[in-house]
């Protein structure tokens, strides 16, 4: 399957915008991806192996968090995985983070 890498992480994939990884499950694909590009691991995952909170992963057009089988979802070569960090913020400097 094709994995689309966002701009800030391409420094860890040799500049590649898209990486092709053979199927299996999403867990298998992430394992292969971070084996091929080891520096990606700490960018995507916490020390406990969980996806960092600001990292969104979409399987085709579906949010990974809402897939019935989540990371155990089987994938095929025609599927796409998109990694997209969140983008948010706001002006208020006087209030606790909301």
């Amino acid at each position: 399957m094709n994995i689309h890498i966002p701009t800030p992480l391409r420094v860890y994939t040799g500049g590649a915008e898209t990486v092709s990884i053979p199927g299996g499950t999403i867990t298998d694909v992430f394992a292969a991806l971070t084996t091929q590009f080891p520096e990606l691991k700490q960018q995507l995952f916490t020390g406990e192996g969980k996806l960092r909170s600001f990292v969104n992963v979409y399987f085709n057009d579906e949010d990974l968090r809402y897939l019935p089988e989540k990371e155990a979802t089987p994938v095929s070569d025609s599927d796409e995985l998109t990694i997209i960090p969140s983008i948010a913020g706001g002006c208020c400097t006087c209030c606790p983070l909301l």
Partner: protein
Amino acid sequence: MLQITYKDYAALRAHGEETYPHECCGVLLGRSEPSANGAPVRNRVRQIVRADNTRTDSAHNRYNIAPQELIKIQRHARTLGLDIVGFYHSHPDHPAQWSPTDFAEAHWIGCSYVITSVEQGKASITNAFLLIGSSEEDKRFTDQGIEIDVQNIDANPARVKAKLPLNPQKGKA
């Protein structure tokens, strides 16, 4: 340095005026030019894309772009041979300076974050900040100059570049 056409620069400022008193937000598409050590030193904007602010609960001081919309914009960029090189948003009646919230929610290292202060509905100062570092743990914002390309404006065919002051609060664009 952030390079942007006058048309896009004016459009992102106008976006902030249109959404006042709420924050606007959008995406900068273009190309990053790496320096000798691999760090992008210049983000050239070729197109801006408006995005919806999904923080309708607190749109006057928060913004968020839905990941689904961001993916669509990224696909659009790919068809043009462009990348996401930055984002913009407005600060209604607040300075054009990144806030703790902006910093906490900034995760696109190497990208430009453009902020326009909109005072009483009128766009005032626009500043750019480059998110640098190698990870969440050592990221930081650094001031980024804005180079406005005013080529093809009206009847003036001359290529003129306006370099804006780096100091966020000392110059009005």
